[in-house]
């Protein structure tokens, strides 16, 4: 059986070739992934495993960088690097800061 990430040979429409500028936050996602690999906290294979565990619906609904940061975050929680509660509190703080912006 094919995993939902295993797209080779599945039906699909035309290829969109327009250029998309890679944004700074997306480069930061790549930087975090690389640093986690260097620290031996998460290997490429572990990130891929987490991507392949998001479920087909989430995987296809999210953009490339969105699913990569979500997979990383899930792995860091399951490895005990931080807890769900710590992440929730930090997300709230980030949201709050955003509302403070002029």
């Amino acid at each position, binding site marked *: 059986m094919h995993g939902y990430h295993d797209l080779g040979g599945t039906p699909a429409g035309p290829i969109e070739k327009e250029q998309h500028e890679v944004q700074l936050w997306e480069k930061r996602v790549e930087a*975090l992934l690389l640093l986690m690999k260097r620290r031996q906290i998460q290997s490429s294979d572990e990130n891929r495993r987490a991507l392949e565990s998001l479920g087909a619906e989430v995987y296809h609904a999210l953009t490339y*960088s969105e699913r990569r*940061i979500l997979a990383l*975050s899930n792995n860091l929680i399951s490895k005990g690097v931080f807890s769900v509660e710590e992440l929730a509190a930090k997300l709230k703080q980030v949201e709050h800061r955003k509302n403070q912006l002029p």
Partner: protein
Amino acid sequence: MNEPHDHHHAHAAGHRHPPQADHDDTLTYYRRLEIAVRELLIEKGIITAGEVSKVIEDIESRSPEGGARVVARAWSDPKFRELLLRDATSALTSMGFELALFLDTQLVIVENTPDVHNVVVCTLCSCYPRMLLGLPPAWYKSRAYRARVVSEPRAVLREFGLELWDRVAVRVHDSTADLRYLVLPMRPPRTEHMSEAELTALVTRDSMIGTAVCRAPS
């Protein structure tokens, strides 16, 4: 700061864009998630903000120009070309690329000839020879390219404006995290007089993925 249309995905059925395009200055849930994960890792002393900036600088310093220099060298120096095809890591470190770039992944260079045209994809995710080409273009990561190039490569190449003779065999190489491919395109005719630096300018990103060929200036 309004960069229109910054999605990096194929438009799968059931997923439609909102009327307002997603701008860089909108703090979506996933952008907040990136900030939160990064700040937690910094607070816990696992990484520093400086390291993140340094890695981003490294990412930004890599572009298809690196790969183009390699191709131009291979066109100009038969000994280098032979080594590149046999042992890419040795060839690239001899050109001054850092060995660290090639430690956890094998790089294989596949050579186009008058009889064989090579194309690279990663059907499982988005593996790409970033050390030589920088970050992959959006279409390389798209559902449509990953799905179709393995089953109907000629139709896909036609969409890229590349029509190959029927007698040319098309080989599609599916990359993995541990094994990545770069295409060595054919040197265009009537470029015998050109220097290595001039040749470098003819080598496009897409020609090293295999969705284009190199052409001499007209």
